[in-house]
């Protein structure tokens, strides 16, 4: 009799627990809208890794990949909002207006827009990562490791995110090596392995012995490996693609944020905010450092990483001048987020013009 009571008590507890978990899992459904395919091993791939973390935390998720940044995005968002999703992550800059437009029609659905700045309705939040902090570290490594003092940089599109990265990288590289030149090639694509490889090859043929990239595929690090120069992984750890060339990678780590926000919806604590996390919050992760880097450089990088995380060092600390020599950030000051978000001028030391 006792046994029966205990057993039924335990089993009802288990049932209750299962029901609660099921209730949470059933109650909160998260959707993700991707610009590219999840198989790009870059931007979208990393967002999908974040989505899987949400799934692992016990929530249901849906995703739609390859959604163009047009009226199609609105249609997809409306469809997702209509089909019982409670929180929708839109993971590309161009979804900014569609997200806000659809958010107005569905006040009970939470919208999270990546890399944007418009929060026109109380149910729209924005989030982004301070990738430029990672590029400060890459610049420091590049400036130290280069022998030819020519550093190549394969860029994608002239938007503040990319310009900020180039500036942060160049400022850091110049700090350790005032003689370096950053040569920039615009590939006008986020990922096209063939084109990226050709751009990297052009830079290598012109004497660059360290290649940085702001495009997504692994073609550039592979080209660097073939040519015997150094490179850095983008978005995910690319070391296995080019073990000799890759000195480190800057990884996008969205998982913790996604889990946090979906849980907030489940707990009813979600509120609108603008999140811009960097190394300190773990949204930007620096992969393991290659053993080819001298010990003192490794130590320096680790210290820089800690200082960036704690806020002791800021990637954009004055004095910073633009290409014409005008002061952008005064001595002792740091660039504020407004300036960083709209950065569309090169700092002194970057060669060439920003494509208009």
């Amino acid at each position: 009799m006792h046994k029966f009571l205990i057993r039924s008590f335990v089993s009802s507890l288990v049932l209750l627990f299962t029901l609660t978990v099921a209730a949470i899992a059933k109650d909160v459904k998260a959707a993700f809208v991707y610009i590219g395919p999840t198989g790009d091993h870059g931007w979208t791939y990393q967002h999908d890794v974040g989505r899987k973390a949400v799934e692992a935390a016990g929530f249901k998720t849906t995703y739609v990949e390859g959604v163009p940044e047009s009226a199609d995005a609105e249609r997809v968002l409306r469809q997702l909002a209509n089909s019982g999703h409670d929180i929708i992550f839109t993971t590309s800059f161009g979804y900014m207006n569609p997200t806000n437009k659809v958010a107005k029609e569905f006040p009970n659905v939470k919208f999270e827009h990546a890399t944007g700045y418009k929060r026109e309705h109380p149910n729209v939040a924005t989030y982004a990562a301070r990738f430029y902090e990672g590029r400060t570290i890459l610049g420091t490594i590049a400036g130290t490791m280069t022998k030819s003092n020519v550093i190549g940089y394969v860029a994608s599109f002239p938007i503040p995110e990319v310009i900020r990265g180039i500036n942060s990288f160049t400022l850091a590289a110049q700090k350790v090596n005032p003689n370096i030149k950053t040569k920039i090639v615009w590939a006008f694509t986020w990922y096209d392995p063939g084109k990226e490889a050709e751009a990297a090859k052009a830079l290598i043929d012109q004497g660059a012995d360290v290649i940085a990239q702001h495009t997504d595929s692994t073609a550039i690090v592979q080209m660097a490996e073939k040519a015997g120069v150094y490179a850095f992984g983008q978005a995910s750890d690319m070391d296995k693609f080019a073990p000799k060339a890759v000195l480190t990678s800057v990884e996008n780590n969205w998982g913790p944020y996604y889990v946090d926000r979906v849980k907030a919806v489940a707990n009813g604590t979600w509120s609108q905010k603008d999140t811009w996390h960097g190394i300190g919050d773990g949204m930007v992760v620096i992969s393991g450092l290659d053993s080819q880097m001298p010990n003192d450089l490794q130590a320096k990088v680790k210290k820089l990483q800690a200082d960036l995380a704690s806020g002791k060092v800021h990637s954009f600390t004055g004095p910073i001048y633009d290409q014409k020599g005008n002061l952008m950030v005064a001595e002792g000051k740091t660039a504020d987020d407004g300036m960083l978000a709209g950065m569309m001028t090169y700092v002194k030391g970057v060669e060439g013009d920003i494509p208009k």
Partner: protein
Amino acid sequence: MIIDINFVGLIIASIMASAVPLILASCGELITERSGVLNLGVEGMMIIGAISGFALMTVTGSLIIAVFGAMLAGVLISTIFAFLTQTLITNHVATGLALTIFGIGISAMIGKNFVGIPGKEFPVLFEGLKDTIPLISPILFGHSIVFYFAFALPFITSYFLKKTKIGLIVRAVGDSPESASNQGINVRIVRYACILYGGAMCGLAGAYLSMIYTPQWIENMTGGRGWIALALVVFSTWNPIKILIGAMIFGGLTIIQFHMQAIGVRIPVQFLTALPYIVTIIVLVVISRDSRKIRLSTPSSLGKSFHKDN
């Protein structure tokens, strides 16, 4: 910047390497079109070749199996097209477009398991001779077998079409399937063979991208090269040697514009990026402007279905 002679050699070698997939796919499609079949599925067949080659290389570890497997995959997917257009007499344009969409979709599905895996190193030939003669050596030596094959292919194709009996049969079928049929040629079989051959070459072009040029798999990695290959066939007026020229100009301008950017030439980058497309078309139109020759080399029955019973 000092332009030394080896630098020029290196640039020419990169240009040639970038032209390889275009030459392979275009020469394959050229044979298909010469038989009177318009297959717009080049992009789809290339991407199938790319994933098949990469997947087989990863699974079997054998480069030979992977290369031939990619060609076979191109043949298999083009068999679908051949069956639809030749046996069921569907519209060439619609079927070809469907083939491309199908290829991109299915390659993405198969490819899910192969994302993030590094490719294998593909062996190159004559590596030891690479530093012997300035300018010439980097161009001639140290490339993969597919590279040499691609540069021989336009000449082989040209010889095949002009000098061999089978080549003449292919052209006859493309120009007038009715007459060919009356001569006792089985038009359907010839067209089937030409479609499958085109599929094999597109498969090889895709495998070159995923196994040799940028050894990795990512979705949509052909990046529209299939469409460029198709355009090259038309603008070259179905002439294999002009395909070679067009592919070199296209690949060359892509690479040269990157070099111009790196040097810091002050030309709007967007213009530089568009340059390969514009110049390739202009050059091919100019070198093929003899309208009599265009009429002669255009397969008269291109894209038209052929019913033997009519």
